[in-house]
């Protein structure tokens, strides 16, 4: 059994009070409670304050290019679907730069667990609007306010029949831990959007702002009703639902590939003699 400390990585260079600390804590607890050890999991991240996440925890890490988290995670997962592959991305990273990849990862239903540190801002580049920044918000390069409607990642996900759609809040650690565990346990692609206050650059979406709005989704809510889930996903204003919004049981992308059904690709023997017939035919 692993202990919390086993998942400890480098000392974070996040600002004091950053919502990322709570995500890190919830993540470590979830891994320990799931009985996972650091060597058993791989985290892929992009670029951003969120992208630094796997540096600050112990695990197999691939920190790639801005926006390209999901294609890399897809490749990893197809080569070794015996290993849990987690993707940590920012709202800019995976709803902006890599938005196209998100759409296709959800379509494919590859079993990658995507955790989005959604601080409604570009943190690392010091405070530009992100795709989830509210319309009208004045930011560093939006001096007259954001002119586009914000992206609603959860409505997008439900519309695309994403197989697991949830929202957590960094200010509600235990609840977040539960959602991380659910996302991990789900078969198929999981999107967990985590509201994460950026205390330095986002002066609008503060802890208080989220606290007064976030509520736990009612216990009698049925996350398997897609139309109802879409309605729930549209709720983002005075009240923000947190919990599992939608879940289905579509077959995964890995399930559909007969060659890796029994054994992950990396565990299969490398046997040149299997090529013998083909070689003989052509030479």
């Amino acid at each position, binding site marked *: 059994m692993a202990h919390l400390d086993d998942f400890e990585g480098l000392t974070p260079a996040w600002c004091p009070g950053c919502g990322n600390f709570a995500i890190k804590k919830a993540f470590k607890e979830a891994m320990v409670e799931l009985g996972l050890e650091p060597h058993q999991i791989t985290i892929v991240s992009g*670029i951003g304050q969120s992208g630094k996440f796997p540096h600050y925890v112990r695990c197999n890490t691939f*920190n*790639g*290019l*801005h*926006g390209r988290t999901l294609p890399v995670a897809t490749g990893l997962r197809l080569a070794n679907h015996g290993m849990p592959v987690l993707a940590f991305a920012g709202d*800019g990273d995976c709803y*902006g*730069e890599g*938005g196209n990849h998100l759409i296709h990862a959800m379509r494919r239903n590859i079993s990658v667990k995507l955790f989005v540190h959604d601080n409604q801002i*570009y943190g690392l*580049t*010091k405070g*530009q*609007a992100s*795709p989830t920044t509210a319309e009208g918000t004045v930011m*560093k*390069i*939006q*001096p*007259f306010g954001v002119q586009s409607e914000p992206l609603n990642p959860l409505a997008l996900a439900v519309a695309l029949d994403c197989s697991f759609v949830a929202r957590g809040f960094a200010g509600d650690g235990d609840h977040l831990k539960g959602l991380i565990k659910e996302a991990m346990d789900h078969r198929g692609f999981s999107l967990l959007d985590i509201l994460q206050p950026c205390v330095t650059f986002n002066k609008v979406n503060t802890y208080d702002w989220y606290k007064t709005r976030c509520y736990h989704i009612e216990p009698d809510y049925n996350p398997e009703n897609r139309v109802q889930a879409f309605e729930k996903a549209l709720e983002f204003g005075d009240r923000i639902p947190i919990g599992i919004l939608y879940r289905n049981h579509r077959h995964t992308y890995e399930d559909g590939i007969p060659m890796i059904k029994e054994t992950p690709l990396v565990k299969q023997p490398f046997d040149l003699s299997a090529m013998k017939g083909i070689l003989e035919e052509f030479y």
Partner: protein
Amino acid sequence: MKKQLMSGNAALGEAAVLSGCTCYFGYPITPQNELTEYMAKRMPEVPGGTFIQSESEIAAINMVLGASVAGARAMTSSSSPGMSLKQEGISYLAADELPAVIINMVRGGPGMGNISPAQSDYLQATRGGGHGDYRTIVLAPSSVQELADAVPVAFDLADSYRNPVIILGDGMLGQMMEPVSFDHIRQEKVYPKDYILTGAKGRPARKIHSLLFDTKLEEEHNWKLFRKYKGMEQNEVRFETFLVDDAEMVVIAYGTSARIAKGAIRRLRQENLKVGLIRPITLWPFPTNIIRETATRVKDFFVFEMSTGQLIEDVRLALEGRGHIHFYGRPGGVIPTPVELFRIVSRHYYQSQQVKK
């Protein structure tokens, strides 16, 4: 000449506005964010001015394509990783013979690298960068004033050749503040844009595309572009020489490296070491002839750049075996100091004198 203290990134922005740039599209990336910030604030003050923070660099360069097709002076900027993403659009601009100005404030690479100044995108910039047989004019300023000066030149070159023009700076030039004047920037020349999409009433429709299935047509298009690039090579080479007349060793460096080299050369001169500088201002077309001419008199050339050796390839091609090339490069975002370069160059200088004796 009223001067103001400005960062290189902001100076690029103001110079672009004064050069008639009405469309700027950008995506945040350090160390060029101040340019995007400047344009966000300044563009709304410009008649017809448009600013967009795009969803990605690929979107930004393609927005530039669209604005250029419609006849506007359009610009985008980024730093190394973002510049890689823009290459598909730059290739397309070149193929379609569309003007645009693209700024790259280079940072340490490859991959994600870091946000410190570097010169490691030289080959990407000077060899086209994207796919296909094409070239872009590449300007390499070395001070905040020169950044501002390069912008109107870049827009004029882009319009007169109908070709994308790159300004290659780096994180240091972008971030540092120096006094700068914009008094000289005037939009005098008018370019007849008889190729843009303005509506086809009363004339045949214009179709802008680079899809040429017929290989003969594609070949002819490539030769046409080639002839244009030959014209650039003949007419657009720009460089600066510094203390070259009596030099026994000539440093070749551009941009930030050239500034550092000048500092080193001043020290070397105090010690009576006869060292000069040739500074390419256009990296493409490359100032081959001045280097070749200098080689009739000087045997020792010293290439200095903030990379493991990219500019050196062009120097080698220029010299074609005449003369001896010395090299000092530091990659990864490290900025060598003038004192450091002074020590290295003087060592090489004395050693080659020993050989000559």
